[in-house]
């Protein structure tokens, strides 16, 4: 059984539908203790980092127990950012601190005056739009169970303004103004900044990789 964590802001419908398409049984736990029987855990999420504050110490303990039981976890979007120390989007709200680093707003770190020959730029009318919305290339940076079997220049769907740094936990990176961690992994804890449930065949492959670890 895959437990989908609902903290009241993320829309679970899309993730649930994608998992149903992959024949995975899902449940939405109403109490932290419900997690103790889950085979896998997915923390979806959209919106502000602050929404994660809805999950108090009891939920955090239950998630830590889940990891201690050697069961996999997948954080999506804000759910992935939550795995880190925190985010400058909500400085007063620490993350799960399973991965080192702080998420920051996307900034334009490209050369201010790129040569015309450097090819197309992400800038529209000379500047970088934030949020980063749309399909972008996921570049695998390390061998990974989460990204196993995805095409080399596969694209996935993003919609976010904040992003996690590229650290040792990064297994897939994406560039938009700056390079950021699009997929992270530490043991059985995984996270993706993009929305696999909205990334067509590439996204379904990633969800299937997670289910293979979980079920």
């Amino acid at each position, binding site marked *: 059984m895959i437990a989908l964590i609902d903290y009241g802001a993320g829309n679970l419908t899309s993730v649930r539908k994608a998992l149903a398409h992959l024949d995975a049984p899902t449940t939405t736990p109403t109490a932290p203790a419900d997690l103790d029987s889950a085979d896998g855990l997915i923390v979806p999420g959209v*919106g502000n980092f602050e929404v994660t504050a809805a999950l108090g110490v009891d939920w955090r303990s239950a998630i830590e127990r889940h990891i201690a039981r050697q069961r996999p976890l997948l954080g999506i979007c804000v759910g992935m950012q939550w795995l880190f120390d925190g985010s400058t989007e909500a400085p007063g709200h620490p993350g799960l601190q399973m991965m080192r680093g702080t998420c920051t707003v996307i900034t334009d770190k490209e050369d201010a005056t790129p040569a015309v020959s450097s090819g197309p730029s992400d800038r529209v009318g000379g500047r970088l739009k934030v949020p980063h*919305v749309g399909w972008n290339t996921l570049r695998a940076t390390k061998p990974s169970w989460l990204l196993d079997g995805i*095409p080399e220049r596969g694209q996935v769907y993003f919609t976010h303004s904040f992003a996690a740094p590229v650290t040792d936990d990064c297994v897939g990176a994406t560039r938009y103004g700056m390079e950021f961690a699009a997929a992270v992994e530490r043991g059985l804890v995984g996270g993706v900044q993009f929305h696999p449930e909205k990334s067509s065949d590439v996204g379904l492959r990633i969800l299937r990789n997670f289910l293979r670890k979980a079920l």
Partner: protein
Amino acid sequence: MLSKRIIACLDVRDGAVVKGINFEGLRHAGDPAELATRYNREGIDEVVILDITATIEQRKALADTIQAVAREIFLPLCVGGGIRGEEHAEAAIEAGADKVGINTAALSHPTLITTLAKRYGSQAVIVAIDAKREDGRFKIYVRSGQQGTERDAVEWAQEAADRGAGEILLTSIDQDGTKAGFDCELTAAVSSAVPIPVIASGGAGTFDHFVDVFTTGQADAALAASIFHYSEHAVADLKTHLRTNGIPVRITEGSGNGASDGNLL
């Protein structure tokens, strides 16, 4: 590199896809879920379901249609038409929409933009603007393009972004249904004035029209309806054409056969 998005619009009435010329003279073009599935196979980046009669006939967006489409494809799905309040947005999102498009209601109740953005996140809120050239300006029309206002499209787009809109869906009423090309001047005026993505709509007829709107028009995404409905492989061949012209696009495996010649009808 972020890809320019190609979005298929399903104009839906009574559960079937239709497409009008200048919002009139509708003709039947197919089952929404079937069409969406085909587009997904061909490599479409996003789908919009527009309940074209909802505002006029005071109907909600069709939950059944949304559910049927959301069951078949795993792409961003936007629903518009008849979203007049929070409860309509909730119904669409519950049925499987990732984003809701608000048009008339946003203009008459701008706080709705902020309310929805706070509840679902800005990425879920698309403000749709129908604009028409009048007296050297781009004036906004509402109620499915039937009622003029005194509002300026560029100013309203800026206000909508300030209030929390995540994207702007910008339709040129002058160009819509003509196949004569997007209004690149309108699109560039709005796109350069707001920090959020702008989806250009209205007037697509050839592959080069898309090249124009992504370069001159500074669009982040382009939307079309009927040109995709009647031509198999159009989506994949369009993307190949765009890539050849230096526009970054998402190319998927096994889609398209190069049969289209750029003249979509």
